[in-house]
């Protein structure tokens, strides 16, 4: 086992993790933790479920690292796992709420604004969370990827496996919906 992997390349980390090196895998989790949080929490909100989904993303990654051929970036591979697991959770919640509740999409997005050193930052975080909570879940994914992660159009269509035309159309519709939501906030 190596002492530190902080300077290691992705491929080296993946190889060491496959061989069972927990330290190398810990470095992968450390590097991509926030990226996964932005996707999962951007789509599900800040709740205990998001933490669980976040953990599952990395566990699934660990179990499927042997299948990772290195053709795409590791971050894209992780991002895809995060999106798939979060979409599954959204579907599960939709089924649950459609059976047991008459309320809308808001129930699927919970959030808790953390303590910030300034009131302004707190307000900004609250505004974004409120907007995401009101946004249709099918648009949240594109907003999470584009607005929170900063992915380009090409990267977005690669991650979502969608044609560029569909990505652009969804972006435009998400933007329209966000405009209406933000006017009321």
């Amino acid at each position, binding site marked *: 086992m190596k002492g530190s992997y902080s300077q290691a390349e992705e491929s080296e980390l993946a190889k060491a993790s496959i061989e069972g090196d927990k330290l190398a895998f810990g470095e992968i*989790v450390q590097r991509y933790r926030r990226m996964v949080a932005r996707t999962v929490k951007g789509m599900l909100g800040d709740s205990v479920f998001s*933490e669980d989904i976040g953990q599952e993303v990395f566990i699934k990654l660990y179990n499927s690292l042997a299948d990772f051929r290195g053709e795409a970036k590791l971050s894209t591979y992780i991002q895809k796992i995060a999106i798939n697991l979060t979409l599954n959770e959204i579907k599960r919640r939709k089924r649950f709420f459609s059976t047991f509740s008459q309320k809308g999409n808001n129930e699927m997005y919970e959030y808790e604004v953390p303590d910030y050193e300034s009131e302004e930052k707190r307000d900004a975080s609250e505004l974004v969370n409120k907007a995401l909570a009101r946004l249709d879940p099918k648009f949240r994914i594109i907003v999470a990827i584009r607005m929170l992660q*900063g992915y380009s*159009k090409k990267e977005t269509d690669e991650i979502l496996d969608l044609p560029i035309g569909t990505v652009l159309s969804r972006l435009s519709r998400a933007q329209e919906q966000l405009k209406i939501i933000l006017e009321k906030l």
Partner: protein
Amino acid sequence: MKPSELKKLIIGSLDENADPQLAAKRLEEEGVSFDFSKGFIDKVIDRVASGADSVNREIEFSRSMRIAFNRIAITGVAAIVLLLISIFIGEGSFSLNSFLGLGDTYDEGIICLLTGN
């Protein structure tokens, strides 16, 4: 940043020609950041380690089951062969009656046996 400016930034980040990285960076600077709770990495590593343990336990269990099944199967086959040999020796054939132990009985004989007449 004023709320109106922030709203503009949010909406603008979804523009087709906007630089999404710049918008994401500015939002983060404004306090829009997401992260998991403290100890997240340790929890993941613990779950990965316990998952590996449980997989090892499952493999060990299925191996033991296979060994046990093989032993039972071999013993069972041997018992069946012995039974067939004993039936053949005792009854002289493998007919249904010999399997049921009814080799030398007639219907009337059974009635006599059951009624005692």
